[in-house]
């Protein structure tokens, strides 16, 4: 497949105004993005956000309603799937049950008329640590092994882009962590562009160089995992990627290097560089682990801001304790306190003060009339279809 790439200086994958409608439902809405060659890119979103449809359009299994899929300079949006230098690791693995592992892995090579496949297949099987499994049938393998066969079957073709459709969704937690590291290792080793679709934010953050958070067919935010996490662009992202305490506030324009806001009668400020918006209705956001708990307001260090409340719940989760702090106006803030042994646990019912460094807060746009969003967003059940 190298012959295809000679006129494309960069084998970047670009989606240009890609749209897919099913009847009146718009699954993917005017999507444009560039995925640099050799990167590990994650499309993150809840079920039905259009991420799998996007992937299927890149693979050619779904025809776009409009828009382009460009690989280098070449528009492949109208090519049949078997003519594209793109391979997929399917969520269901879709291994051929009538072929043994060797023939499953060799399938793509054989279809392209390559006769001597033995060495390549053996090398690929050892890359995914399945040496000696060649003569078995897929049904004789465990879920994790089948997943690795699916990966080997796609990788052996040296595609320009490898698409992964929730490939770890069917595995249990421990195996999933192991495979995440494995996938990352293989991607670094082969240097192929990986486009990974997942609803698991932790998976996206551990593995990808770049994460695009999708919602309702559009990309809400795109960037490095740390950048998105530390400074989300929208309330949706703030709560989909990790969780956030978002307080409904009003901002009245920047003053000096800061944007002063009022929220529930209290006055706070956020550095200009941490504000997506500087006037009108805003959300004042702080991540739970950026909040610290002390017994009274005079223990709050200088330069920090705080709210007072009552501890209503304390969940001990080993590495940290997760508190809920009910504020004077009734919202419950999440506070994660690392169990470093520095402070004793706070019993439920105690008066406490949560404080934060204003440089850790952020301001996001808010629809007028929307209230605080502080309830933790629960993770989707593992393996949910998308």
């Amino acid at each position: 497949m190298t012959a295809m790439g000679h006129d494309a200086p960069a084998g970047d994958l670009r989606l240009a105004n890609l749209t897919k409608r099913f009847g009146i439902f718009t699954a993917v809405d005017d999507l444009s993005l560039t995925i640099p060659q050799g990167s590990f890119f994650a499309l993150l979103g809840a079920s039905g956000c259009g991420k799998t449809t996007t992937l299927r359009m890149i693979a050619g299994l779904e025809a776009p309603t409009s828009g382009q899929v460009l690989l280098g300079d070449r528009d492949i949006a109208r090519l049949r799937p078997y003519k594209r230098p793109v391979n997929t690791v399917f969520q269901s693995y879709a291994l051929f049950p009538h072929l043994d592992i060797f023939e499953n892995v060799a399938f793509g090579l054989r279809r392209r008329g390559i006769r001597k496949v033995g060495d390549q297949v053996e090398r690929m099987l050892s890359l995914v640590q399945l040496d000696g499994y060649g003569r078995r049938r897929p049904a004789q393998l465990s879920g994790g092994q089948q997943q690795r066969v699916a990966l080997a079957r796609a990788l052996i073709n040296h595609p320009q882009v490898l698409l992964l459709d929730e490939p770890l969704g069917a595995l249990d937690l421990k195996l999933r962590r192991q495979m995440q590291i494995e996938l990352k290792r293989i991607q670094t080793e082969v240097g192929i562009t990986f486009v990974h679709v997942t609803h698991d934010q932790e998976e996206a953050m551990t593995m990808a160089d770049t994460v695009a958070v999708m919602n309702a067919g559009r990309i809400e935010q795109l960037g490095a995992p740390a950048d998105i996490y530390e400074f989300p662009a929208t309330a949706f992202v703030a709560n989909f990627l990790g969780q956030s305490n978002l307080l409904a506030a009003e901002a009245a324009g920047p003053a000096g290097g800061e944007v002063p806001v009022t929220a529930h009668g209290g006055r706070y400020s956020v550095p200009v560089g941490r504000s997506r918006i500087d006037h009108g209705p805003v959300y004042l956001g702080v991540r739970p682990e950026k909040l610290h708990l002390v017994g009274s307001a005079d223990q709050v260090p200088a330069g920090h801001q705080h709210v007072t409340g009552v501890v209503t719940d304390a969940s001990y989760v080993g590495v940290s304790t997760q508190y809920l702090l009910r504020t004077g106006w009734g919202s419950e803030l999440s506070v994660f306190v690392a169990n470093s042994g520095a402070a004793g646990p706070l019993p439920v019912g105690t008066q406490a003060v949560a404080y934060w460094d204003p440089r850790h807060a952020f301001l996001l746009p808010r629809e007028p009339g929307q209230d605080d969003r502080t309830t933790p967003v629960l993770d989707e059940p593992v393996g949910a279809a998308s």
Partner: protein
Amino acid sequence: MSALAHVPTGSGQPATPPAARSGRYRFLPYLLLLPGAAWLFLFFALPLVQLAAASLYDPSGSLATGYALTWAFGNYPDALQAYWPQFTRSFLYAGMALVLALLMGYPLAYAIAQKAGRWKNLLLVCVVAPMFTSFLVRTLAWKTILSDNGWIVGLLRDVHLLGPDGRLLATPVAVVLGLTYNFLPFLVLPLYASLERLDYRLLEAASDLYASPLRAFRKVTLPLSMPGLVAGTLLFFIPASGDYINAELLGTPKEYMIGNVIDSAFLVRLDYPQGAALSFLLMAAILAVVFGYLRKAGTDEVL
């Protein structure tokens, strides 16, 4: 919660080992076998032995004078000598009908299984519906359809595919068409069952791995439908090659198959030794064809 709550409590009771089952039930499986085995013995094994004996009777005997078991193995070569054209014709017609049925039945089964959506059950009923009427009635209906003044013959004469005196009835074409029609459901149903289980995502995977639709069919769909295809062809071919109704009603003695000869040997000419010998020859020929075919098709799911 106290730590004690997590101690498994059910471990004190060891599971009863299967070998220690009470002796009263040891013979139960054999008892359950008994009705079926007795049925098969009385109505299959015994008649088969009787038929084998009949095939070795002295050919000069008759119903009136009685038969003597003289171990007349010569009955076999004699029967084959006399009726080898009908033998070949049986397998030829059944084979041609099978090819026609495959050409129609595979796409039909595929369409019903993979593309019919909510029409699936209705279409399946349509495939089976003709079976609600008797085999004879259906074949007689074909006699009307193919008759010399029917619209099909008229149409074929008009487009000059048939000469002005050309006919369909009483030709090999009519017999093969009749066989095809009558046994088509036996081919379609097992094939449908196989194709219905085919996961379309495997076809997506094949096309993702550079297989054109035709290649995907040959490398994925066809091998995965093999159990149904083998079962269907056997269910079609075996009764079709032994059939005599279609040749009788739609053909002439020139189209007679081996079934017609056996029929007349037992019921018209009353030559029991010859009829029995021909029956065994047909059975042996079909078994040979089936085993040869299964060996070639190489599916372990059928046998």
